[in-house]
């Protein structure tokens, strides 16, 4: 156990640095409030505040064993919350507590350095949560500030002022950028994790899931978060063809749709009949495996596979921004024949549910058994009856299918898709639910389609003899007049939005947000998603070889070039060494005298020169002597900064006066 250290073991300057360091710590922790369970950053901020209070009141810090106990308590709490001490969230939480507790144990400059390093670590660790441009700028500012503190800590007596530290700090960042770019472009990227990344199941990014329950998609309807962006070689798909499949669900338990556990691994048998569209998909981190694919994906890209229901799955969790090269068939026949098992699965309905709906489907089949006729009947049913499409449907009670179809009649896409699928299955038509995204905003600047979480949608595929699986979007059958404006996000209703009058401000706002999105898109595409394939492509484009040894060689050459450049700049700078303030003022005075033909000899000091001036130009005598005296004082007399500043001001005044007298 260590002795209780007095709070005053730091010098006044170190205390000030410490106070600013605590502010930097708080600024690093605060953005994590939205990323981690609230209590973790909350308690950390509280501890930092407490430490600042102790510092301000000059109170002794707690004994070491108290800190050790607090540390153990924090570790236990983190373990209870995350069931682990490693992994992103638990690791960053432990880092927060370590930084906050370490700040209670500051006895020397060395401890301050440890806290500064922890601040660096925290500022960079935030990129595990967010790699967007605003955060990058914020982290840059933090690093400039923390580096300023580190410099001040090592500056000895007469440290540079804060303004000059800030200027030098910025310069430091600029000077480090060439090396950063070099290493960023050339440092070999590897595929896959080094030691595994625990799934972030607790904090998975909001998005559609592999289950469909009432409200599961409606809760996404207001999320402006970007799901993915797609660029097309050639024209983008038409409005009504923008369906992106993510999950296919074929098992209904009366309330929720899930993928049947016995789903065949075989993706399905696809015969493209129409145009093949190639596109590139830039995904945001989802912490899932699913890759949204435009109907109907042709083949899986590298490190991904097609699965049952003809959906794309990445081999690794998509825990960062990723780019995929995909292709889709605009017209196709999927599964021209249906195996008996598959057919049974696509007709499954739990016994005893949706009895009214089954009766309705039976009546339709009795009237006209042709599957296409039944489909049309069902769509007409949604259109002709008082069905409303709304973002906030009232809750469904009892049997959700019957309650929706015959009583409530207000719903979001998942209610329509679910009820429609139940009707089809009851009528003997193999049916399944598809959840994914529909629509998207076209960015006219950079020509890509932006799809947000708000574009999440659910629809239905029915299997028809000779045509395979056919996409039906029952939501689009709802009469346009009964679509409530706030939910105008499905492709079937998108035309309504275009018809509405958009105010000028709204228009501006849309334009602005679209251009900001362009920047973000560009950022994500070129920087954030820079992976092994992108690096290979980049190196190829600039005519370099890829591969560990070649890249190491390029890095070595690049560093050598940078060092030579640095040496050159150093030589240039030294040949033009900047003069200090008194010398600059004095030179101004000399330039003025030079017009009268008086120049100091190389060996002549300021005072001697002033005497010569006095002898030759008597009217200048007084000024020249005064300036020479002030200059020598300001330059050589030393003294504290206050006196120096005073002398400098006097000198400046004296030099100005002579100017006026000209």
């Amino acid at each position, binding site marked *: 156990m260590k002795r209780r250290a007095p709070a005053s073991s730091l010098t006044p300057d170190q205390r000030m640095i410490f106070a600013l360091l605590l502010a930097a710590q708080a600024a690093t922790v605060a953005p994590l409030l939205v990323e981690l369970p609230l209590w973790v950053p909350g308690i950390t901020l509280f501890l930092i505040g407490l430490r600042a209070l102790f510092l301000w009141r000059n109170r002794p810090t707690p004994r070491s064993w108290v800190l050790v106990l607090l540390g153990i308590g924090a570790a236990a709490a983190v373990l209870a919350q995350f069931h682990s001490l490693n992994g992103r969230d638990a690791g960053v939480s432990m880092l927060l507590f370590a930084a906050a507790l370490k700040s209670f144990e500051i006895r020397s400059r060395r401890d301050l350095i440890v806290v500064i390093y922890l601040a660096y670590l925290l500022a960079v660790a935030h990129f595990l949560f967010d790699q967007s441009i605003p955060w990058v700028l914020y982290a840059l500012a933090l690093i400039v500030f923390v580096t300023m503190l580190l410099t001040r800590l*090592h*500056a*000895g*007596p007469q440290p540079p002022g804060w303004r000059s530290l800030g200027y030098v700090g910025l310069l430091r960042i600029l000077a480090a950028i060439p090396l950063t770019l070099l*290493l*960023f472009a050339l440092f070999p990227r590897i595929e896959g*994790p*080094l030691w595994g990344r625990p799934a972030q199941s607790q904090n998975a990014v909001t998005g559609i899931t592999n289950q469909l329950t009432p409200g599961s998609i409606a809760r996404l309807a207001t999320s402006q978060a970007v799901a993915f962006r797609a660029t097309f070689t050639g024209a983008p798909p038409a409005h009504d063809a923008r369906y992106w499949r993510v999950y296919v669900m074929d098992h209904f338990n009366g309330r929720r749709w899930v993928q049947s556990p016995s789903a065949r691994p075989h993706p399905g048998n696809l015969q493209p009949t129409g145009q093949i569209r190639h596109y590139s998909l830039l995904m945001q981190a989802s912490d899932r495996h699913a890759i949204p694919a435009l109907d109907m994906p042709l083949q899986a890209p590298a490190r991904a596979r097609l699965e049952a229901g003809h959906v794309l799955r990445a081999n690794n969790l998509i*825990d960062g921004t990723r780019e995929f090269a995909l292709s889709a068939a605009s017209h196709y026949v999927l599964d021209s024949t249906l195996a008996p098992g598959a057919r049974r699965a696509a007709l499954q309905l739990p016994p005893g549910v949706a009895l009214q709906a089954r009766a309705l489907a039976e009546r339709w089949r009795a009237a006209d058994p042709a599957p296409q006729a039944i489909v049309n009947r069902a769509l007409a049913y949604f259109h002709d009856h008082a069905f409303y499409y709304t973002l906030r449907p009232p809750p469904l009670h009892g049997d959700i299918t019957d309650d929706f179809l015959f009583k409530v009649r207000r719903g979001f896409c998942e209610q329509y898709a679910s009820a429609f699928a139940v009707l089809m299955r009851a009528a003997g038509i193999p049916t399944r639910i598809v959840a994914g995204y529909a629509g998207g905003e076209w960015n006219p600047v950079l020509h890509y389609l932006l799809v947000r979480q708000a574009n999440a949608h659910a629809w239905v595929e029915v299997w028809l003899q000779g045509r395979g699986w056919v996409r039906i979007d029952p939501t689009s059958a709802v009469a346009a007049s009964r679509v409530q404006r706030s939910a105008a996000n499905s492709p079937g209703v998108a035309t309504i939005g275009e018809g509405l009058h958009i105010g000028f401000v709204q228009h501006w706002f849309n334009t602005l947000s679209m251009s900001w999105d362009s920047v973000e898109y560009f950022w994500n595409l070129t920087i954030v998603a820079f992976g092994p394939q992108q690096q290979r492509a980049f190196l190829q484009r600039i005519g370099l070889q890829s591969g560990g040894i070649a890249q190491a060689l390029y890095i070595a050459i690049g560093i050598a070039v940078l060092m030579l450049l640095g040496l050159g700049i150093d030589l240039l700078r030294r040949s033009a060494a*900047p003069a200090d303030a008194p010398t600059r003022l004095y030179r101004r005075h000399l330039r003025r005298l030079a017009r009268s033909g008086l120049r100091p000899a190389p060996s002549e000091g300021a005072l001697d020169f002033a005497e010569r001036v006095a002898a030759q130009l008597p009217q200048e005598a007084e000024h020249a002597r005064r300036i020479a005296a002030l200059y020598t004082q300001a330059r050589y007399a030393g003294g504290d900064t206050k006196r120096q500043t005073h002398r400098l001001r006097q000198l400046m005044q004296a030099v100005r006066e002579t100017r006026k007298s000209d």
Partner: protein
Amino acid sequence: MNWLLRWAGPRLAIAGNRVCLDRRRLFILPSGAGLAYAALLVVLLLFAMNYNNNMMFAFTFLLGGIGANAMWQTHRNLLGLCVSLLPPAELFADHPASLQVLINTDGRPRRALEFVWDLPRAAPDSVLASAIEDAPADLPLPRMRRGLQALPPLRITTRYPLGLFRAWSLLPYTTRLLVYPKPAAQTPPMPTAPTGSGEHRGHSEQEDDFDGLRPYRSSDPPRRIAWRASARSDELLSKSLHGRAAEHIWLDWQALAGHDSETRLSILCRWVLDADRHGLRYGLRLPQRSVEPAQGLAHRHACLRLLALHGGIE
């Protein structure tokens, strides 16, 4: 650091007392904090690779660039710096003293320069100075023995700006300092009777020689004490005597029989200082050499020099 001197010593030896730090005089290595910083970067890099996180990559490289540039800056903080040593006018053995270090910059401010004598034992005093302008700094000297002594090498170290690197230079000055003996604290009374001028002995107490009163010093003989004046005052007073031109004293090695030779030198040193302060004419006699009686600064230095170099110490 002695291995370094053995290796690079000959080419780094400094004649005179001014030296400018050029590239061959400067050494630089990562400091402990710098190694910790490197470890931090490795951890960040591993995380960046594990999570395929490009911004972590970028910022790891950025911090690496900042660290690499700090190496240049630390080096430049010493490069081109000129250091002159201004030894003190007088230096006594085992007495605290300091010399002035004059730092000339080439216009660039230099910060956090640490000056320390490169001694085998734990570093004694070190001085942390910043040189915004050409500026002197006082550097305490290590305790030295009597004689003509070599300075230990002077080490200039800096960690500015980020503390990641330690740049240093070793300045093995060849200049040697003359160190006078340590003035004794307790001395036998100074000889007052000028040997060989016995006729003056009676006169030294005469009223006409009396010059005034001054505070008593331990070296004053009892008969110089002004008892009547002291009784009126709070302190003991001595009669100050007007030294006549012909009057002089001999400070004699032989008079101190019974002390060992270093003690004799110490006592003689104290006597020289006291005699000089009292404005006496004095001469110094050592076994082999002597200085004729005289007065003044040059004489004092000559006497002290003789004492410093006694016994063949060169």
